[in-house]
């Protein structure tokens, strides 16, 4: 990148979003649906108030003991005959996963931000694998060759009319923009892929260390297929997802769905502890009954330990990725997926900077007004605006300064105001 590229490409991206009525329509429909569903769920679940505070404590404890929990998790997974790996960075993660998949394979995936973070699809496709996203939103943007714009609803910016266009191209025949019909098309198209896939790749919402259990929360049922139908299941997830015990995980699981989509509980929570097995014939254990014969858990660092090491940013690791703060953010409502890089909204600025580097997100940091609304709506009360201010300080030291901000700074130091005005003409007023 050239010296100002960090700025110009984002400015263009913001502009494209602001001028794109199609995206703005999709986004505002989603915001309206989300906010009313969440308000309803929260008013009917007063017990969430205590629970979210407990979850905050669980996360604080877990992050404090993150390294230890990684070790316990890996031991537990191995004990139940799964395989466990630790990936220090994105490259290591790609190598591990690519090695496990091989080449020329049919791969089905359920939505994984961690997968996007390390660029898993690109790595697999390079090795001539065919990769299918199976979460409807991810499927849509994969077909459209776009990038996700929300962590829970990646295609939130694509309204039904546009989905119909995309599916018409896929099937080579006209498709009507009715939402149920569009869902049906994806179901029919992907069903065969699930059954014939060689490998299924998922992320995880929580991992409980002591039992080595992977939790996957979803509503569509695609993650069940992905983690169950193919003979090999690879789960790639960040080390911050680990909590000590099953009960800790259950606590978190109760807080996540109402804040994520405004439901009491998501339709499906898969708990996976080791590969599929049976001992029904002569009590002899055989792996790979109806579910996968192999289970591989890849635990990713990629900046998470540095986040934990810095007091100023540790809180970002408490995020349970409900996505609520994005829909509630006034800036996200206008520039959507451009407000961040691989993660979005205020919290996404921190996550993007630590996982994929400063350069791609530095300009978006200056789009945050630090208004603090995200902290207000966050179930864990994560102080994102404070972290964004700290991140900005760090970026300034590295040279990511908006020319306009530098001008203002100079004007303040020289003239006492940000506008570059000479004030000697101002009279002294007295009352």
């Amino acid at each position: 990148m050239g010296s100002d590229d960090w700025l110009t490409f984002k400015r263009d991206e913001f502009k494209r979003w602001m001028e794109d009525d199609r995206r703005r329509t999709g986004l505002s429909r989603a915001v309206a649906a989300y906010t009313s569903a969440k308000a309803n769920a929260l008013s009917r679940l007063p017990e969430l108030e205590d629970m979210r505070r407990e979850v905050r404590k669980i996360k604080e404890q877990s992050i404090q003991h993150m390294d230890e929990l990684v070790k316990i998790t890996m031991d537990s997974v191995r004990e139940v005959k799964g395989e466990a790996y630790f990936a220090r960075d994105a490259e290591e993660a790609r190598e591990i996963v690519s090695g496990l998949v091989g080449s020329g394979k049919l791969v089905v995936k359920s939505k994984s931000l961690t997968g996007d973070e390390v660029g898993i699809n690109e790595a697999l496709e390079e090795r001539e694998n065919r990769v299918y996203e199976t979460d409807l939103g991810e499927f849509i943007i994969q077909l459209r060759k776009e990038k996700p714009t929300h962590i829970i609803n990646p295609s939130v910016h694509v309204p039904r009319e546009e989905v119909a266009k995309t599916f018409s191209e896929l099937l080579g025949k006209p498709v009507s923009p009715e939402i149920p019909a569009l869902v049906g098309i994806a179901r029919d198209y992907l069903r065969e892929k699930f059954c014939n896939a060689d490998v299924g790749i998922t992320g995880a919402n929580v991992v409980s260390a002591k039992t080595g259990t992977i939790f996957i929360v979803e509503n569509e049922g695609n993650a069940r297929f992905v983690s169950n139908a193919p003979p090999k299941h690879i789960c790639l997830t960040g080390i911050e997802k680990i909590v000590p015990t099953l009960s800790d995980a259950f606590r978190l699981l109760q807080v996540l769905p109402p804040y994520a989509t405004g439901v009491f509980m998501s339709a499906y929570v898969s708990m996976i502890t080791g590969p599929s097995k049976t001992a029904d014939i002569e009590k002899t254990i055989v792996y790979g009954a109806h579910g996968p014969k192999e289970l591989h858990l890849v635990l990713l660092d990629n900046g998470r330990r540095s986040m934990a090491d810095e007091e100023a940013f540790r809180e970002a690791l408490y995020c349970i990725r409900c996505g609520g703060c994005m829909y509630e953010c006034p800036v996200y409502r206008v520039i959507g997926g451009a407000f961040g890089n691989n993660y979005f909204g205020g919290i996404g600025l921190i996550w993007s900077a630590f996982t994929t580097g400063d350069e791609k997100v530095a300009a978006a940091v200056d789009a945050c007004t630090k208004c603090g609304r995200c902290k207000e709506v966050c179930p864990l009360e994560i102080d994102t605006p404070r972290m964004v201010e700290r991140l900005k300080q760090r970026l300034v030291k590295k040279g990511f300064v908006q020319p306009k901000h530098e001008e203002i700074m100079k004007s303040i130091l020289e003239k006492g105001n940000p506008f570059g005005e000479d004030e000697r003409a101002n009279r002294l007023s007295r009352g």
Partner: protein
Amino acid sequence: MPDSILYWKGCMSRLRTKSISDSTMELFRRMGIRFETLGESEGCCGSVLLRTGQLEAAKKTAESTVDRISSAGFTEVVTSCPGCFRTMASEYPVILGGAPFRVRHVSQFLVERKSILKDRLGSVDLKACYHDPCHLGRHMGVYEEPRELIRMVPGLELFEMRDNRSKALCCGSGGGVRSAYPELSREVAKTAARDQVPAGVKLLVTACPFCNYNFKDACSGQIRVIDLPELLLSAWRADLNGER
């Protein structure tokens, strides 16, 4: 001096939204409040620098500001701008270890003297709504004082924006966004005014020069925007309905 308060205009109402500082001073005079300003040497509180990551410059600016205020002998500072208020009241203690004067936002200061305003404000026939500035509300917990003052205007019916108080939507101009991405700031303000103001409300009351400036700029023709002291002064002058 010392028996006067220091009215700290802040850069925005000193140089851009002058009608806010002019109205505030006129209101103070009418209320018999003794005040002074620092005039041309007021300078900057450092808020913008803090928000844009320029910590060293912010500290330097804050230090010299504390110096100017306290060497002039002021012990009471009243600000128009919630950003100045927050910075001096809650961030100077962190970056400078404190400041030797008390700082309040004009809404807090006025509410304590509302008996003076009583029976002075002319009656209007207006539906208005109040926008909570982030620095004043969420960051400093001041929600009710401005509302109390607005409700003192006889005949003014106060409505709430759909999201208000701790959930209020930012106008989009804070944090250095307005200078880095003016279009984005305007778009945020426009969206907020469009989605949040109840039908039939024609007047948006702000309590922050930055919000005021941004809403005015983004929503001209959409809604009339007025800052709190401007509203009170207009009501006192009984020219609110005619004011533009």
